[in-house]
């Protein structure tokens, strides 16, 4: 037996036997090309810097929100139309925390961090409940899933209106993050840098978890082939609940970031952002984290560039981007294999 196996082992050990997956850099090139192409189109370097920073910030916030959704879809084939509820919930919880902080004259940088933490916890708790009550009974039934999660979205939005009231609530930044830095005549708002840092932190955390830990290995394996992971003895349903809760918490965090970005919160925020994140995960390829990242940056940058160059078409820039990407790659930028 040992002798029979040996030749094959040695083949595997040799250099050419394990073909590495070729990294597809074309979408990244597209992103870079877009940023470079915008310089001559916009004309002035300082506006270009401001717009690019704004676009990257917006893109990273969208990525924070959308990453959970795309993982949940990849892992369990569950498309959660109610994801927007967690965004709105996060933002509204932040308004409450900030008003408490203001009442306690504690208007610093840490009040913002506390708001983010509390919002994530709330969104995670509600996400767990949502998974139990809304998503679990309709596993594997696509049609009902879409209908039920949409119903959950409406119920959640109305409950938020009942608790916090239907009116717009202002969400001013704490003193420490107001104002902007000057960089080569370009004004860069401090909050944008802060939000981008948070977004990058989430991205690197996700990338590390997915590629370097056992948990991430299981998640990636589950996205590729769920029944095989199950057959190997892992309880993928528990893993799924964990991913769903983590995705909801990230959506809550994204909601806080988005709320501060807009400086006000309405109950419709969830539905508005939902449309954006759907476009992002379609562009990126359903289930792909890297695709979601590139898609979010593309959407954020194009929205800002188009808003500056031609405000009238800015509304449709996202739809146009989606159409173009789907014509080019019908499965999205980074299609998940075996799907």
């Amino acid at each position, binding site marked *: 037996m040992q002798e029979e196996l040996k030749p094959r082992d040695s083949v595997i050990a040799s250099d050419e036997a394990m073909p590495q997956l070729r990294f597809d850099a074309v979408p990244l090139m597209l992103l870079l090309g877009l940023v470079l192409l915008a310089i001559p189109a916009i004309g002035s370097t300082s506006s270009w810097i401001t717009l690019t920073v704004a676009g990257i910030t917006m893109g990273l916030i969208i990525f924070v929100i959308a990453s959970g959704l795309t993982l949940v879809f990849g892992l369990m084939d569950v498309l959660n139309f109610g994801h927007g509820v967690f965004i709105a919930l996060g933002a509204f919880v932040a308004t409450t925390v900030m008003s408490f902080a203001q009442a306690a004259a504690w208007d610093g940088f840490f009040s913002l961090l506390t708001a983010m933490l509390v919002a994530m916890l709330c969104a995670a708790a509600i996400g767990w409940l949502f998974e139990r009550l809304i998503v679990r009974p309709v596993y594997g039934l*696509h049609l009902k899933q879409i*209908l039920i999660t*949409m119903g959950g979205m409406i*119920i959640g939005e109305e409950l938020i209106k009942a608790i916090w009231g239907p009116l717009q609530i202002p969400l001013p930044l704490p003193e420490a993050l107001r104002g902007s830095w000057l960089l080569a005549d370009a004004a860069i708002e401090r909050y944008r840098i802060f939000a981008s840092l948070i977004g990058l932190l989430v991205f690197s955390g996700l990338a590390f978890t997915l590629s370097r830990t056992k948990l991430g290995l299981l998640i990636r394996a589950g996205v590729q082939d769920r029944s095989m992971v199950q057959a190997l003895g892992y309880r993928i349903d528990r893993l799924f609940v964990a991913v769903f809760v983590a995705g909801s918490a990230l959506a809550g965090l994204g909601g806080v970031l988005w709320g501060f970005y807009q400086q006000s919160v309405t109950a419709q925020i969830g539905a508005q952002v939902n*449309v954006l994140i759907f476009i992002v995960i*379609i562009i990126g390829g359903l289930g792909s984290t890297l695709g979601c990242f590139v898609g979010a940056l593309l959407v954020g940058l194009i929205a800002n560039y188009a808003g500056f160059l031609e405000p*009238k078409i800015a509304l449709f820039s996202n*739809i146009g981007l989606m159409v173009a990407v789907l014509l080019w790659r*019908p*499965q999205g930028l980074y299609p998940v294999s075996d799907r």
Partner: protein
Amino acid sequence: MKWLQRLLSQDLPRSPLLALALLLTFLVLALAPFLFGGAKSMSVAAKILIFMLLVASYDLLLGYTGIVSFAHTMFFGIGAYGVAIASLRLGESWGALAGGLGLALLLSMLLSLAMGLLSLRVRAIFFAMITLAVASAFQTLVSQLSDFTGGEDGLTFRNPFGISPSYQPFESAVFGLLIDGRALGYWLIYGVVLLMFLVLLRIVNSPFGRVLQAIRENDFRAEALGYRTVAYRTVSNVLSAMFACVAGALLALWLRYVGPDTTLSFEIMLDVLLIVVIGGMGTLYGSIIGSVVFVLAQNYLQDLLRFAAKAFNAVPLLSDLVNPDRWLLWMGLLFVLSVYYFPSGIVGRLRRIRMPAAKSDATAPPLS
């Protein structure tokens, strides 16, 4: 009874109670101007009729083909705005109406074709997301182009001679009703809805409709049998969009007004979803029963909530929950609960009740 079977495309109600309810609806709605002449109840009757067509066209997509679209109200709105804009620009005439409707139908066809070809060829789940995105962009577009569409205020226009309220063809009252253009307009809507409903019934019971149901049940198998599922899904999407467009035109004719809230809003999309689910997915009779039940309930539930809000005035959170403004909350709950516990809807339930005297219809195709 042969002619009735042919008229209904061999798709009979298959339940005595359902047949009775349908007959009652048919008669009461036909005689509505005589039975209740008041403006409010006439509006309720017209709304029921228009929703019947809108929901039946949506059921072609959701119930028969198994595709979820969130852009159905977009086509509803296109029909309504087409008629309104044509009537305003060209002056009120039947020619302007026909032209506006024709252009609206063309636009609906092209849009639904483009959306279908773009998303349905990949996977059906894309379609739900893409329709949501396109519909919200369209809603923003309509409120932005205020020169053309009247923005958030909408447009008010006048109906052509014959169905304008001031028109009175008879000198004296007929059966106690002074027939005016409004009643004639109502009957026009009634006739169009009835005709369109029969056409839809014909479509879903044709060989084409059978293929749609096969795709709904198992698209992989349908494709293996040699049907081009993408083409069938796309045609189903286009047909459903065009029927919705006609329903929108009828709504505009009845209200003599269009605005984003009456035609495009997401609430109407939710109403349509709810009626399909309550009435019964995958059966067109569900849209009739569902529309009647829903529109009547809509008028009374809000009264009930108002009453409850007064009763619970002192309780802090509960009074917010039963506030009439939060009525969408209760609709959403009703929606989720009906998808869980009531998936075959009223029609499915009625068909399951076996009357001892009624002969079971063994030759009928099995219902999913």
